[in-house]
């Protein structure tokens, strides 16, 4: 009897593995605008595939459509994890074209950008509901993490039981406070990094392998 159970277990383990090998987990990179999501996505993609995901910019809402990089193979401690990275538009509750005017943009362009950004948020929320298996939540560690958007998104992610990795980005900046983010979400592990400088990426990959492998 025991033999059969064991056999059955190992068979299902093998099929599980086969399945997970066939279908890489889709990991959404979420967070508020300008947290460094695309910079991180590009860093990961460049490190493991050689390509970038999309253009980065200091102007908020540069990413207005979700962009996917498939089959990113990450090797950690002799183990390989294959994931699809989805870089999503920054999630916010308010989009105002006027904030783009400060960045030397014509009004028409700013209005269009604003509309696209709004559509992007709708898309990002839709992906969160349907299409991601795990979330990398990127926060700008120089800003206050206690926002409605962060609380709501983390809440949604938790309610979906999705594995989530919280990254405190921009540690290269002086005002960065990783502690503040740890305090905001004590129920999750917070990993400090600078996606721009590539600081602490080793730990990030380790955690990605651990959480999403």
């Amino acid at each position, binding site marked *: 009897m025991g033999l059969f159970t064991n056999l059955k277990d190992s068979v299902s383990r093998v099929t599980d593995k086969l399945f997970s090998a066939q279908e890489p987990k889709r990991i959404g990179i979420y967070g508020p605008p300008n947290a460094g999501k695309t910079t991180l996505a590009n860093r990961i993609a460049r490190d493991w595939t050689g390509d970038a995901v999309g253009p980065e910019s200091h102007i908020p809402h540069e990413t207005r459509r979700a962009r996917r990089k498939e089959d990113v193979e990450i090797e950690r401690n002799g183990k390989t994890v294959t994931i699809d990275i989805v870089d999503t538009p920054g999630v916010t509750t308010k*989009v*105002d*074209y006027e904030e783009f005017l400060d960045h030397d943009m014509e009004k028409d362009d700013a209005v269009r950008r604003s*509309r696209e950004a*709004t*559509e992007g*948020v*709708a898309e990002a*929320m839709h992906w*969160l509901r349907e299409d991601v298996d795990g979330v990398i939540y990127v926060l700008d560690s120089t800003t206050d993490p206690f926002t409605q958007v962060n609380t709501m998104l983390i809440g949604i992610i938790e309610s979906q039981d999705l594995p989530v990795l919280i990254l405190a980005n921009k540690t290269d900046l002086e005002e960065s406070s990783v502690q503040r983010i740890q305090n905001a979400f004590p129920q999750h592990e917070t990993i400090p990094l600078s996606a721009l400088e590539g600081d602490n990426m080793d730990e990030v990959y380790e955690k990605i392998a651990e959480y999403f492998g």
Partner: protein
Amino acid sequence: MPHQCTSCGRTFADGSKEMLSGCPDCGGNKFQFKPAEAVDREGSGAGGRSGGSGASTQKKRPADAPETEGDRGRGTTGATRATPDANKKSADQSAVDRAAATVRDWVGSGGESGTATETAKSSTEARSQPDDDSTVAPEDSAQASARRDVVSREELPEDPPENAVQASTGEPTTARTSTDGQTPTEGESAPDAPGDAATRDESRQPAPADDNVVDAPDDENPGLEDLREELNSQFESIRIESPGQYELNLMELYEREEYIISLQEDGKYVIEVPDAWDAADR
């Protein structure tokens, strides 16, 4: 009928969910928003059309039966309501039956969620209630709030005015009593004085109607402002403050099965149609 399919021209009630799975006629997923007045000016063409072509049966029905609230909002039903008579009631009965059938259709087709089921339930309960005249009048006032509680205006499809009047006079009234076991919240529970109650009912009528004005299609100024307001009350997920300025309800966006994939300032928008994808896959 503020929403119109841009490819085949079919119109939909403000708040209709039919279009959420794409236009039932042509499968299009691009719609434009037409304010109520614009439609009126077109010589009630839309209303006449849906009234006349009773041939299209089932499909038509959702568009017919429960379009109560728009008219209630315009205050046309007050008078009718104050004169309950036997004929009216049988008409009511059939209107409500059709409404219930409609709801069942929706539920059956999987196009609707929990709220619709509730409505169906309460309509059925309503029909099983004894209706004597003494109860009808005082309960009328509760009707508005009852319907507001059970199903929001957005969840009711459009229909021609005749039905609207009938449907709103009839059974849903008792739905309140059957679900709550209570008379209206206004506290004027005087079923022993039906005449009184009827008059009072008439005077009270504007109150719930006013409450609903927010999401009732307004007859005035089809300006861009109004248009935006209409859209806003419809798609609570995205509020258009002005061109380029948006407020987003993340929870709404997250919870909606369909989502807006393209916004345009002239009231046009494109939605993703989950059902259409399914159909294409099959």
